[in-house]
């Protein structure tokens, strides 16, 4: 790692002020992604402001919503009783992420901001529009088995690595922030960005803006949710594809449904098309098949990743089958 200045912030406002004042300043909470990015030279910072000791670790239920401080660790949130009982999709997504050690370190806010595992992005020397805008994308014609089949562009097909973000997308969470201009709230739907022609801009945050909390509406009684992750190893591996499903059934009929997918797109991928194929209909082999068709209708596989188109349909079938059978 190159030399950088370090400061520990006592208050969120102070952290924001310090980072905003330096063009290449950044926050560190858990450090589990940032340190690797700096070691690999994928990111350089001349200032790192430690926000890990800010009093933003609380997890509180109020008014039918769960507010999770951005500095709460993945482990704390995954094992929180309300999360386990009311938000199984979120608990499962977190417990299938990373390793026990990393879950003890990594923060909820940082989890949403972790950067792609695309090997070209993490290896300076290769063309990467995300790391060095305008340099090209080595993955388009390169090793792209792990890359996006949905939502990519000719500038970037790297996938977003967070499992939590996929669950939060299905749960319609809200991200609370504090920036140089004060606090604001950003719906999770508008938080992560598709790459388009600017893959280096991955989210709605401005420079110096700090995630302070994530708020999740608690599902009504009768709502079931589940996360399925498919990967090359049984544990401690990023998703090839993943599926988060939140449904409310009335007998065999789907009353409400939210479906989000990971490993297939540069951002957590919500599929309104797949949801529409199920809403108000019975959960059967046929309707699940139609939802899968709708999900991948606009898929654009590259050289090595066509298998994901089929795999994500099977993941959807599996997660819905299990939810449909669940009592």
């Amino acid at each position, binding site marked *: *790692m*190159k*030399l*950088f*200045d*370090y*400061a*520990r*912030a*006592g*208050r969120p406002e*102070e952290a924001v002020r*310090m980072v905003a004042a330096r063009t290449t300043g950044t926050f*560190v909470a*858990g*450090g*589990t992604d940032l*340190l*690797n990015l*700096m*070691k690999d030279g994928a990111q350089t910072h001349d*200032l*790192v*402001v*430690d926000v*890990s000791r800010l009093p933003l670790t609380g997890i509180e239920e109020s008014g039918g919503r769960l507010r999770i401080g951005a500095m709460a660790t993945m*482990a704390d949130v995954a094992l929180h009783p309300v999360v386990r009982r009311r938000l199984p999709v979120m608990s499962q997504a977190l417990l299938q992420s*990373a*390793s*026990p*050690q*990393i879950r*003890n*370190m990594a923060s909820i806010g940082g989890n949403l901001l972790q950067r792609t595992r695309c090997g070209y992005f993490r290896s300076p020397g290769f063309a990467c529009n995300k790391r060095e805008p305008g340099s090209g994308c080595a993955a388009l014609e390169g090793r792209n088995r792990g890359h996006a089949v949905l939502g990519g562009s000719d500038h970037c097909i790297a996938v977003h690595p967070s499992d939590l973000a996929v669950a939060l997308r299905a749960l319609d969470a809200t991200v609370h922030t504090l920036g140089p201009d004060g606090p604001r709230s950003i719906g999770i739907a508008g938080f992560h960005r598709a790459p388009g022609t600017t893959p280096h801009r991955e989210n709605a945050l401005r420079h110096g803006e700090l995630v302070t909390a994530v708020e999740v509406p608690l599902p009504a009684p009768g709502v079931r949710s589940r996360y399925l992750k498919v990967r090359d190893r*049984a*544990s*401690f591996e990023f998703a090839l594809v993943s599926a988060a499903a939140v449904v409310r059934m009335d007998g065999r009929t789907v009353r409400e449904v939210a479906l989000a997918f990971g490993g297939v797109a540069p951002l957590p991928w919500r599929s309104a098309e797949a949801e529409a194929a199920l809403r108000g209909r019975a959960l059967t082999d046929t309707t699940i098949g139609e939802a899968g068709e709708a999900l991948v209708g606009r898929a654009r596989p590259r050289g090595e990743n066509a298998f994901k188109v089929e795999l994500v349909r099977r993941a959807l079938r599996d997660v819905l089958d299990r939810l449909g059978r669940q009592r």
Partner: protein
Amino acid sequence: MSEPSQHAAEDSGPGRRSVLKAGGVSAAAVMMPLAPGGAAHAAPGPSAAPRAAADIALRVNGETHRVAVEARVTLLDALRERLRLTGTKKGCDRGECGACTVLVDGRRVKSCLTLAVMQEDREITTVEGVARGERLHPVQEAFVARDAFQCGFCTPGQIMSAVACVEEGHTGSRDEIREWMSGNLCRCGCYPNIVDAVRDAAREVRR
């Protein structure tokens, strides 16, 4: 002989930092004393001005060590290169292998993925700190009894992770142990014996 380095050294007095920069060898930085005047300041607390190095207190295995470190020094490098606690191993230095696992305030973490300055005043436990005098920790005894290693390089990290795994109670079945020990890789493939050792240790601790 490298002329640019010589010039850099002359230009900036003592010049250690400049030579280091010119060489671009960050791994060596932890071995170097800090440039004069750059270190002996108070530790960064709330509202401290940003700086590239700090004089911090690291509490390791019950002892407090004052150590001057650059901000970029990981906890792992501080433990090994500054405190000479070389039981904690550097494998991948990317959080993937688990050889650097230590406990911070009782929770297992990867010491390669955190900065030493971030862990100031935390209670750090390394593999050197789990035995009670001459008496091994039950996890250590179980690793010996079950022959849960071959080359031994991953073992300190496995042991620290296992100590936490047992403490957390994630030892209900072989599958549960495998899942909750998945952050520690063993290139020799001693996983079956490691799982046996963790089960034995869990029983011993519960007795």
